[in-house]
């Protein structure tokens, strides 16, 4: 008996040793692991989204507004998954049971992560869920940042739009620290200045019990509001520009020639960025994508076309500065000239005797052909790129294209052929390989009228007034005067091609341009729209001390003189009216 008692004591001792070892393994060996699980049990980190910075126009008028929007979400771990409870929950929040189940099953990385059940719910629903959520553990209402674009379709290409941060972007370094499900800028100013506008999300670290009830707020890290941005654009002018383009495809750029500040940058047709705010519906997205007029395209910077006769400004500068012509040089225009082959003037019967003034005013092609016979393509290209053509303007918006200013080297590299002198004759009148954006044309005009300073066009107040290019060939003041006078003549003289831009309010100078879509001189009205020429007009005002430069481009608009010039006149008048008011 004594022996068996001892055996019992041994057994008990061994069991104690086993238990102590087990305790050692749980608390010491795996202690940290269990501490983590324990924290995981009770610690919830809730992001507090930072209010996004507001975008204002140059006069301090808000263009966007933050409007809170509400999501019903659930923490999967906390939701009771028996089917009765789920059914009751689906009725409570008004979501079909199978939809609810698939959303809950969805791909949340951790069971403690919030799963969005219903987006953008009404305030009434929010109140209902808040009141009844005690019966449904895990159910929550999340406030998310919504955005309203106050002018709807206006300036949509500029402002851009928001979208939720997808899993693909969230791994990128620039989105570090941005909470999942946040709205980030995907296009336009919203994208380019996202870092500035975004602010810094805050965090709420909560301690919760097994039922998901908040026991204790461990720490609150307040969000930092995003910085506001003031744009250089004038929303009234922008709206006016968009109105002028209504029903057409085209673009208008208005710019301050003394700084490069963009006053308006319109592209037509536009889209409504409000559609994107809470995740665009597939139907709306498809409609935008399939629209043959491409409303998402920002035509002011993403489309390039031959500049047509607006390029004659560059040819004229080059000719004057290189000494090929002076103010008195006369050329006889018989309607065409020969250089290997026949080069026609747009006016069949010819302009007769033409000097530089008349050549620009009436846009005589033959005068410039004569220049083209004497000037080298690379010299001309130097002037063109000096004024910003063929280079990105660096406006810092999405997808800007550079355009093309052909050189011998360029021709050899892209076409594998040498440059033919006849091609220079096409180039001098703005046709051939040349292609530009309407922003470049505005910027070129600005550089001409401000005495030869090419500014970087900019949209955000305080980010501009940087001269872009020191390769630019200087233009002598005498020549500026000469050019301005001629361009004033385009609008003011009876035979001027830009007569329709004339205004009683202010003196306007400008140059028309027409980009041939197909050859031949068909009557404008008989041509189907898609074969009609593109119309250009680039203008500045007032002529003595220009305060605004406007470039107008109308796709398939027909002639620059009839389709684009009156629009430019109207924009300048609108600018002057508001300038006089304010």
């Amino acid at each position, binding site marked *: *008996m*004594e022996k*068996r*008692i001892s055996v*019992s*004591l041994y057994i*008990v*001792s061994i*069991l*104690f040793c*086993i*238990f*102590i070892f*087990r*305790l*050692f393994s*749980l*608390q*010491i060996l*795996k*202690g*940290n*692991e*269990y*501490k983590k*699980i*324990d924290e995981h*049990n*009770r610690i919830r980190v809730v992001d507090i989204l930072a209010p996004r910075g507001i975008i204002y126009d140059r006069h301090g008028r808000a263009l966007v507004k933050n409007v809170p929007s509400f999501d019903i979400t659930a923490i999967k771990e906390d939701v009771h998954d028996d089917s009765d409870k789920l059914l009751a929950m689906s009725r409570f929040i008004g979501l079909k049971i199978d939809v609810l189940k698939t959303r809950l099953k969805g791909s949340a990385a951790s069971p403690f992560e919030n799963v969005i059940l219903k987006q953008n719910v009404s305030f009434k629903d929010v109140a209902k869920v808040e009141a009844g959520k005690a019966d449904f553990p895990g159910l929550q209402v999340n406030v998310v940042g919504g955005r309203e674009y106050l002018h709807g379709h206006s300036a949509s290409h500029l402002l851009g739009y928001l979208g939720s941060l997808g899993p693909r972007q969230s791994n990128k370094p620039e989105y570090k620290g941005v909470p999942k499900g946040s709205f980030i800028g995907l296009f336009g100013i919203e994208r380019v200045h996202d870092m500035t506008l975004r602010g810094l999300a805050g965090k709420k670290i909560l*301690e*919760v*019990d*097994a*039922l998901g*009830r908040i*026991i*204790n707020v461990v720490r609150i890290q307040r969000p930092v509001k995003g910085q506001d941005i003031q744009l250089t654009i004038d929303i009234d002018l922008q709206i006016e520009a968009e109105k002028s383009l209504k029903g057409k495809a085209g673009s208008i750029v208005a710019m301050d020639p003394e700084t490069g500040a963009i006053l308006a940058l319109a592209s037509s047709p536009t889209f409504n960025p409000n559609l994107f705010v809470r995740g665009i519906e597939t139907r709306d997205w498809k409609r935008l994508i399939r629209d043959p007029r491409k409303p998402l395209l920002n035509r002011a910077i993403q489309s390039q076309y031959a500049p047509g006769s607006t390029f004659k400004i560059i040819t004229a500068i080059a000719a004057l500065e290189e000494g090929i012509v002076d103010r008195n040089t006369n050329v006889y225009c018989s309607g065409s000239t020969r250089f290997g082959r026949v080069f026609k003037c747009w006016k069949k019967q010819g302009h007769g005797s033409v000097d530089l003034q008349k050549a620009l005013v009436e846009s005589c092609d033959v005068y410039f052909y004569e220049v083209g016979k004497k000037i080298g393509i690379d010299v001309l290209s130097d002037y063109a790129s000096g004024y910003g053509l063929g280079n990105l303007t660096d406006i810092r918006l999405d997808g800007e294209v550079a355009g093309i200013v052909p050189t011998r080297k360029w021709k050899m590299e892209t076409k594998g052929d040498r440059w033919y002198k006849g091609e220079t004759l096409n180039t001098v009148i703005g046709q051939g390989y040349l292609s530009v954006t309407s922003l470049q044309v505005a910027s070129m005009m600005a550089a001409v009228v401000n005495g030869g300073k090419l500014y970087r066009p900019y949209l955000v107040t305080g980010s501009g007034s940087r001269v872009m290019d020191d390769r630019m060939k200087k233009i002598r003041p005498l020549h500026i005067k000469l050019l301005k006078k001629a361009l004033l003549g385009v609008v003011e003289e009876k035979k001027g091609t830009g007569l329709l831009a004339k205004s009683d309010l202010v003196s306007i100078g400008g140059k028309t341009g027409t980009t041939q879509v197909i050859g031949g001189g068909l009557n404008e009205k008989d041509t189907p729209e898609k074969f009609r020429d593109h119309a250009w007009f680039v203008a500045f005002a007032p002529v003595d001390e220009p305060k605004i430069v406007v470039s107008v481009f109308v796709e398939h608009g027909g002639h620059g003189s009839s389709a684009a010039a009156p629009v430019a006149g109207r924009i300048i008048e609108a600018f002057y009216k508001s300038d006089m008011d304010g």
Partner: protein
Amino acid sequence: MIDRRLVDNFDWGLLFAMIALSLIGVLTIYSATRPVLDAAQKSFYMRQLYWIALSLVAFLILVSLDYKWFISNAYIVYAIGIILLVLVLVIGRKGMGAQRWINMGLFSFQPSEFFKIIFIITLSRYLTYHKDGAGPDLSMIIKMVVLFLIIPVVLILKQPDLGTALILFFIFISMVLAAGTKRKIILTVLIISLISLPFAGKFVWSGLKEYQKQRILTFIDPQADPQGVGYHINQSKVTIGSGGFSGKGYMEGTQGPYRFLPENHTDFIFSIFAEEWGFLGSLVLFFMYFFIIWRGFDTARKARDREGCFLALGITYMFSFYFFVNVGMTLGVMPVVGAPLPLMSYGGTALLSNFLALGILENVRMRRFALYY
């Protein structure tokens, strides 16, 4: 009156360990049930304190009687116990799917809690009759099985109370083994048990309630059902593990009050203690339990007669069984059978029953030299 020599032989260490563990239990209950959102502290700890006071009185009364008295009245007490077990099935109060309580107006009690002590007394009495050195023979064992084991086990399984039935079975086997049964007999019984185990197992299994089956299955694979019973085991391991080396500190534990660990003031009280006091505190606690168990075996060894020896052994086995089953469950090395931790778990009847049992142990210990008056 109580003899002075009895007082001199009184084992203060045992009583001290009991009271200390009970009070640690109250502190842990207080922390485990402390409110985190609701305003008021629940009164569990207060009720437990009353029960400790009551149990202490019962302990002292029991110590003052000579244990010989229990032995001589063993069969009468056994009969009363059986009657109570039958009664509970007839008039007992139902709760949580079982019928274990008899309502006495002011309070209700679980006859099966006290029957364990009656069972030990009865076996001690019967086992005294075999010759020392030989141990009980086969016919004795069969008689005991029929008379003292099968009847109460069947009655208790009827309630159903698997935990108590198991412990009766365990006490029976260990006491018979300790009594010195010959190896040949042990082997025979073992072989018979092994052969009959599949049949008995099948019988027992089909007699089990669904939740009991679930518990056994979950013990085999806790991960299979993380939200159900396996959830208890997993959360218990998390609770204990997160205590680390020195614990989170008293009243700093979170798993209990935040309700991640259910049953935290009853069956899983050790987990809460280990969370707050860590590995160090748990070692101290283990030492105190080991001390009581060691004192128990020591008492059995030094008892003045065979009756005392068997009583001390039976009580020590029972105490050890509860300790290992309960702590083993919280550590995830034993199935969840719903056994409370002796002295610490919330629950009046169990506390009283433990004090009574240890009272008998103290009784035997302080009378070990009585032969020399």
